[in-house]
């Protein structure tokens, strides 16, 4: 046994501070590396109609406040916009918030304070950005609401909304189910819907349109709407429980998973429950939206009847030309909605590729 010279407490503190400093430098470097990698992607050719405006927008500043790259949909969507704007010479800053509304508002205020030529925000919660948008209006910073819900006045003071047509997505889902079930030779059936986070406007809008279609087809009945929280595993679990619940009440003929990966969960649980799938087997008809690769693969395999677009790259490509127009001084509409596409086995040729990115 011996008394060894021990690391003194001063050493400990010095270590913390040193570590902290390293960490800080890493923060700086991190942003450094990200900005140095992006120019490499510039070679994506800017769409033709915007080239005229390029000269006018060079050096303009845009801040994109959006969800994070850890979400594949967000990643493609955001980077499509960023790359498009950069190709036109716009200076883009990208602030990630990881769907945390508090962080998002902090970032949004940060963006507004920098007085850029435009702020683009993908709201993680529609309500929570309202005060910040009001401030932006007062500060004269134009704000664009991307992707969220139809402009029903829930977010006042916006410069413009550039949105996916959520209602169309819901409508297509219902149409897909009805078409698929009819293709099996049935005249009606029980439907279930497993939604994205319940209560969000995206989920509400889509289900509203979904129900509108059903109202015109009274033989089809939506027996259950459950919250799948944009979670594949949870959706699968719920689906299997619902299959069990309705097994002796006529079964389930059609299921809507609000995103393709949720539809994939439904398909998996149908397999687990040994239910037949697809028109060919006269089984369960499943549809999705947001067109992910899993959905396209499932359509190819005949397990999923269809989906609808809101492909991130397509949505992104819809956004940035409008922003460039705006920066170039053109007036743009208060509401710009992307026409969505309905995807089934028949239209795979048209959408298969763009839908296989995420």
């Amino acid at each position, binding site marked *: *046994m*011996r*008394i*060894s010279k*021990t*690391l*003194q*407490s*001063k050493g*400990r*503190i010095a*270590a*913390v*501070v040193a*570590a*902290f*400093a390293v*960490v*800080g*430098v*890493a*923060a*700086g470097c*991190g*942003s*450094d590396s*990200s*900005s140095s990698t992006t120019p490499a992607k510039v070679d994506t050719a800017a769409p033709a109609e915007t080239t005229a405006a390029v000269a006018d927008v060079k050096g303009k500043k845009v801040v994109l406040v959006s969800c*994070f*790259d*850890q979400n594949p949909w967000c990643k493609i969507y955001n980077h499509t916009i960023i790359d498009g704007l950069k190709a036109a010479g716009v200076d883009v*800053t*990208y*602030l*990630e918030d*990881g*769907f*945390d*509304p*508090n*962080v998002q*508002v*902090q*970032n949004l*205020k*940060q963006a507004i*304070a920098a007085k850029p030529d435009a702020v683009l925000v993908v709201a993680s*919660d529609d*309500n*929570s950005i*309202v*005060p910040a948008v*009001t*401030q932006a209006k007062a500060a004269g910073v134009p704000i664009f609401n991307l992707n969220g819900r139809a402009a029903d006045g*829930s977010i006042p003071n916006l410069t413009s909304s550039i949105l996916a047509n959520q209602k169309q997505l819901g409508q297509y889902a219902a149409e897909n189910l009805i078409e698929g079930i009819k293709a099996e030779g049935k005249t009606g059936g029980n439907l279930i819907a497993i939604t994205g986070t*319940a*209560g*969000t406007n995206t989920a509400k809008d889509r289900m509203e349109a979904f129900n509108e279609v059903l109202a015109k087809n009274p033989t089809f009945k939506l027996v259950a709407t459950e*919250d799948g929280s944009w979670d594949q595993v949870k959706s699968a679990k719920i689906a299997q429980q619902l299959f069990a619940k309705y097994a002796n009440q006529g079964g389930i003929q059609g299921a809507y998973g609000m995103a393709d990966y949720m539809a994939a969960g439904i398909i998996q649980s149908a397999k687990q429950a040994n239910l037949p799938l697809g028109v060919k087997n006269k089984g369960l008809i499943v549809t999705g939206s947001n067109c992910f690769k899993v959905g396209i693969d499932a359509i190819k395999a005949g397990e999923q009847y269809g989906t609808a677009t809101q492909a991130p790259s397509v949505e992104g490509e819809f956004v940035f030309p409008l922003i460039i127009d705006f920066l170039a001084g053109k007036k743009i509409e208060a509401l710009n909605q992307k026409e969505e596409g309905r995807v089934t086995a028949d239209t795979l040729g048209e959408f298969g590729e763009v839908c296989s990115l995420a």
Partner: protein
Amino acid sequence: MTEVQQSPRQGRRARALGIMPVLLLVAMVVMFFVIPALKGTSPTDFNVYNAFQDWSALSLLALALGITVIAGEFDLSVLAMYSLGAMVAVQTGTSSPVLGVVLAVAAAGLIGLVQGLIVAKLRINSMTVTLGGYLTVLGLVNIIGGNASVPYKNVNVGISLDDPILSFFSIRSLITIAIFAIVFLVLRYTVLGRNLRAMGGERRATRIAGVRADPLLVGCFVASAMLAALGGSLLGYSLATAIPDLGFGPLIFAITAVLLGGVALAGGRGSALGIAAGAFTLALLNELFGLMATPDYISDLITGGLLFIVTIISAPDLFGWWRSVRAAKVTTPEQEPVALEKS
């Protein structure tokens, strides 16, 4: 019982760690100005204001967690209380924002009371009880909100709460500062604060000395719930929204802030001022991330690395381990020096 008393040397070591929050804050402030400069930008008044805003959104949550840690417990339910505060305030405070806050704080306090009683009377590990409490309250918040975020009709309240005052502050951050001041004074200059620290430090001795520990413990959980709910309700007003599930981001911020603020996980050490400093260090870091537009994964790595380093440095057995590593290097016992000459 052969209770090994902590030696003065260990005491000095532990106290020396107490200045860590200050050093970290200073280091952070320096970095806040130096790093952007390296990249050719510089932080503005607004960045400082925004850091204060971030601080006021989350520091009360850190304080709520922190006081239970000082008392030698750990309240995981603060996260749900935070959401509960926003939900109740937003739904009841349309006509009178103050009433909304009062109701929110009272509701949370009531649940905190139940948790505190379970912990104190049944002597159950507080982390388990508050985990159950976390899930229960989270469910409750979802029920109240109808599983959706709820807009606050009185948007102007949020806007005026966040209006810049003296360039750096806002009513919200000033309220938060005031709450911190009150809690600081209570912890520092009243019997309650002293007893709380005593209880976290050495519960047996505290009881022997004649302190009634159980009511104090229950009170601690009530206060924790109330502080979290207050923070949540202010955030709810500011965002003009109550969001039922905020994810774990806020909790991770709070735990990190408490640690960086010099609160010992073993209890008995820490102050409101330290927690405020720890939270501000983190708020500045977040603002720096924003200013530099640091990609999310880098901030993840930095936060995770920081937590790892701080835990390792404040780990109780670090020295013992270090010694045994050193000792292991001495291969043959004969080489060991005889520490003392024979008496």
